[in-house]
């Protein structure tokens, strides 16, 4: 058996397996990452992630664990409903990424809610 065959064959087999794993896993669990206006234009089936800015109408209930608010980008907006702990920096004006799906009632039911966490040391860039 030649050297190439001896090491090349296992390499090809492993590459094929890894390729299949990547293909099957990303096919099954990838989600669209959209803006509010893109979601409004065309809502894909299944869960999506939507980024937008929290508006001034945040309402909390159930001891603060349930929240509704409007999420908006440049042109479109949508009501969002979420149950769970909120990120510390959650407040009107910040950008959040919600993961879930748009219901028939026009409300986005979020499974997870992430705030864009500022990795910068500063609170905001200094402008004069």
């Amino acid at each position: 058996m030649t050297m190439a065959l001896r090491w090349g064959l296992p390499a090809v087999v492993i590459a094929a397996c890894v390729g299949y794993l990547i293909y099957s896993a990303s096919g099954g669990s990838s989600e669209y990452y959209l803006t509010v206006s893109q979601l409004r234009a065309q809502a894909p089936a299944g869960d999506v992630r939507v980024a937008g800015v929290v508006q001034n109408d945040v309402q909390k209930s159930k001891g603060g664990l349930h929240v509704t608010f409007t999420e908006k980008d440049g042109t479109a907006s949508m009501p969002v409903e979420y149950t769970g702990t909120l990120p510390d920096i959650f407040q009107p004006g910040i950008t959040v990424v919600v993961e879930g799906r748009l219901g028939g009632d026009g409300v986005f039911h979020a499974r997870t809610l992430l705030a864009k966490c500022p990795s910068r040391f500063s609170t905001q860039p200094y402008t004069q």
Partner: protein
Amino acid sequence: MILGYLGAGALLAALVMGGFSALLSFWAGWRDTDVFIQVGRRAFYAAAAMTAIAAVLLEVALVTHDFSLAYVVEHTDLSTPIPLVAAGFYGGQEGSLLYWTLILGVLGSASLFASARIGARVAAYAAGILALILSFFLFVLAVVASPFDLLSITPPDGLGLNPVLRDGGMLIHPPVVLAGFASFAIPFAFACAALLAGRADAAWIRHTRRFALLAWSLQSAGLLLGMWWAYHVLGWGGYWSWDPVENVALMPWLATTAYLHSSQVQETRGRLRTWNFGLVILAFLLVVFGTFIVRSGVVPSVHTFAISAIGPWFFGFLFACIVFATALIAFRAGRARVDVEPAPAVSREGAFVLQNLLLIGVIAVVFWGTVLPLVSGMLGAERVVGAAYYERAAGPIFVVILALMAVGPLLPWRRAGRPSLRALRWPAATACVVLVGLLLVGVRSVPALLAFPLASAVAATVFTEYGRAFKKPRTILRKRRRYGAYLAHLGLVAVVAGVAASHFAQQEKDVTLQPGEQVTVAGYTLTYTGSEQRQLQDHTDFVAAMRFGDQTLEPSRATYAGLGGQALTHVAITTTPAADLYVVLAATGADGSASFRVFVNPLVTWIWAGGVVIILGVVLGNVGQRSAVPELARRRVPVTLPA
């Protein structure tokens, strides 16, 4: 003000020295002139020294609150405690680049210091490549993103530090990670230099081994500290979320882990030369790729990075590195081929190769998950993958790697005969016992039924090897590199157990309680005793106390009045032998009630302990270790005994 001018001047001087060093060193390598080699190397030392001066100046500006510098204003204020003000050095974009450059300069100088003995030309090219990398960073620092930019008006106070970062973790996690990243450049430079000089022997591996180990150890510690910090600060009950920022730190670590294994094959058997060049180069390219991803904001992440002008520059640098490295491997690595008899697949070499291929597979999975938003965004609608993708795609590969860890160390070099196969009976028996035990307890999750038995088989393998060695205790010290590596394997077993337990058996509960009420999660009972407000130096703490046995847990919410009322939740964690109790204060009511999210995370402490053991095993195994293993490449080893 004066610090700004001095700092900018020091950076410019460093850039000039760096460029000078690169030019001279390449010329010296090309023409093999001793004098120029030395001058080039000294110019590198000078560039490193100027960088160090710039770093000191920035630190002085921070600590003395020199608000004429934009960087000082943007990253600190008067109320921030001084250790955190000092940490502002590496807390922002420009400062972290300067820190990176500083580490590169210091470690680069150290690696060049004794490099002449591995051959004048290799040393010259290595100095040239290191000087080029250093000059690139200095150029970005001096021209594109300078930490010494001045403001036209000096404000009375700075903007202050984000509350999430006002934590002890800030003092240790970022510098370790960044130092880890910076140190990957050294094995890369020497590998490329060896290729340029046409040297295919293992001299560069021996010379850079301690730097590869340093890069690997720092990166391991950085990943571990990052997980620990996220777990204790972020309050979502986990430690790893497959965010692009985590992924790009994981990939070079995986590549270096592969290299630390495969370099042994070259050192002891003279094989896999081209492969080793490739792995070291891959690790460095992944570091540059990660830096580009993290600092350009091209993929969506929960971290928003300062989207600055340095993105395109890093892209250009990445492109140049890829072209350079690919060309080197394509045109020079052919010379590294050696004509040795191929080893049979079932042997120590075979196990190492398989492990390497599998680790590359994991890198491919993580890489695809990281760049998918970028690729899909170019082709149409942007798509993202979550934790489920990584678990489904990388999980099976990790299972095979675990199985290999149980088998590999028991296989001899060159060939596997009957005796070595017989050695496998202990790990196999252990795995079976654990499997049956788990089934009897009622575990039905297939991943858990694979992870725990295989991890225990790895442990059995390690103990088998230690058992053999204890008959001749002196061998442990003499071959401490090997037994240190086994210790690292044992640490990994603990990490796997911790990850699997906390992943498959985590429990959580959301609850709203009045003072005096109780909640029970997974058999742990907590009593809410009431809340109180505390005024501290720069924030107000709202504490909701929970009694657990004779301990009091104090999850709290801090409000920073000086930062426009920004809030920060402090998680309360208590560790029992079996699990962590992890309590987050979610909200408080006007009537004295409080809402909590309570997690029970089994065996999380095993992850931290195991991680420490992994690093200790590798470090202890290599302390005071002379690179004594001779390369056997030239010697042909008969595969079969003569009849």
